[in-house]
């Protein structure tokens, strides 16, 4: 036995494998044998360090804390998260609106669409309002302007028609002029009468179309 034997410490410094190799030496060296035995005893005695004691209040305490946490979380629960694509319908509606506006600006109603005759509301009321009457009079004036120009172009032909079709056109124009004359006479005492104004505008429209056809016929 050597009181100053340091082989165990040296083996310990080298690692676990070196300790295993110390066994033959330990068999002959009581000092190293005791140290090696203690080394093994540490592991053997360790499970005895396991602790066991009654904690009757621990589980109820944990349950209480968790219940409080749960209640707190329920109180502080944020509003449900907004759906990821919730903006899509709104964006689609906005895009549709923008496209509609662009379409309206491109396909803006022309002169003819401003014709009160084309308006669905025109004629529903028995009497015209001041604003509508003004619009109707403007439309009549426009028709009269067009009719005047077309009449100038067609009048030489209408005075001496050289074909049957032109004769028919002349008779139609005479009928239209007669109807226009009657309506004007009726409107003189009833300017706001919607029906009469509508009839008059229809007559003007028909006369204009007839004159256009006459001019077209002559040219062809």
């Amino acid at each position, binding site marked *: 036995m050597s009181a100053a034997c340091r082989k165990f410490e040296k083996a310990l410094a080298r690692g676990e494998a070196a300790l295993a190799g110390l066994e033959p030496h330990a068999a002959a060296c009581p000092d190293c044998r005791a140290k090696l035995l203690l080394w093994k005893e*540490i592991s053997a*005695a*360790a499970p005895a*360090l396991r*602790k*066991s004691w009654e904690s009757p209040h621990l589980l109820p305490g944990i349950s209480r804390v968790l219940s409080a946490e*749960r209640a707190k979380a329920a109180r502080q629960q944020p509003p449900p998260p907004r759906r990821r694509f919730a903006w899509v319908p709104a964006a689609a509606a906005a895009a549709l609106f923008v496209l509609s506006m662009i379409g309206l600006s491109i396909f803006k109603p022309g002169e003819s669409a401003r014709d009160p005759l084309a308006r669905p509301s025109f004629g529903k009321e028995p009497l015209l309002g001041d604003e509508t009457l003004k619009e109707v009079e403007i439309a009549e004036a426009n028709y009269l302007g067009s009719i005047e120009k077309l009449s100038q172009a067609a009048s030489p032909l209408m005075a001496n028609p050289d074909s049957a079709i032109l004769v028919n056109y002349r008779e139609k124009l005479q009928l239209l002029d007669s109807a226009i004359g009657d309506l004007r006479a009726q409107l003189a005492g009833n300017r706001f009468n919607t029906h009469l104004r509508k009839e008059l505008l229809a007559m003007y429209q028909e006369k204009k179309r007839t004159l256009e056809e006459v001019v077209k016929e002559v040219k062809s």
Partner: protein
Amino acid sequence: MQFGRPLEDRSRVLVFARKKEETLPESDRPGEPRDEDARLLEECRTGEISAFERLYELHGARMKSVAANLLGNLADAEDAVQESFLKVYRGAAAFRGAARLSTWIYRVLVNSCYDMLRRRRRRPVEVAAAGESRETAGFAVPASDHPLRLSLEACVRDLDPRRRAAFVLFEVEGFTHREVGDILGVPEGTSRTLLFEARRELQRLLSRRGIVAGARR
């Protein structure tokens, strides 16, 4: 220094340790499959308190023991266990299951113990005064109490926290090195290294106390 206990006592300690292992609940035994883990995790994710009570039934005793050995104080150990359950409750929904639930809760526990040790270092006077009375109150010591166990317990408390955790988890609680690695967040090899360093340090501390296997009988 002579510790006058005969050899039979030493073997009685070992017998006690073996008996203790046999009386452990099945799920607490090292290496037992824990099929209930996944189901229990799902229940924990829903925040069902009953699931946490079941978790306590399965692991509570072992968690208390781990915490008591890491903190050296039973009351603090209970606080650490309670704190861990709260953390597990809060984190269960986000837990993705890279580790098993049973490993994860011990990881949470060990970290809670580290936090408590850090807090204790910041207010040592206050804790030391309270600790004296709380140290072993209510602790059921084995009938065959032994100087080696007492000295070992005292020396374990002097270990560096990481080595102490590795020693407690592997040698005392019987986790495998793989489980210890998962719990401590280190590779398996590092767990082995930490354990070896712990045992080497314990050998040195015990020798300093005069506990040498040949001499104490």
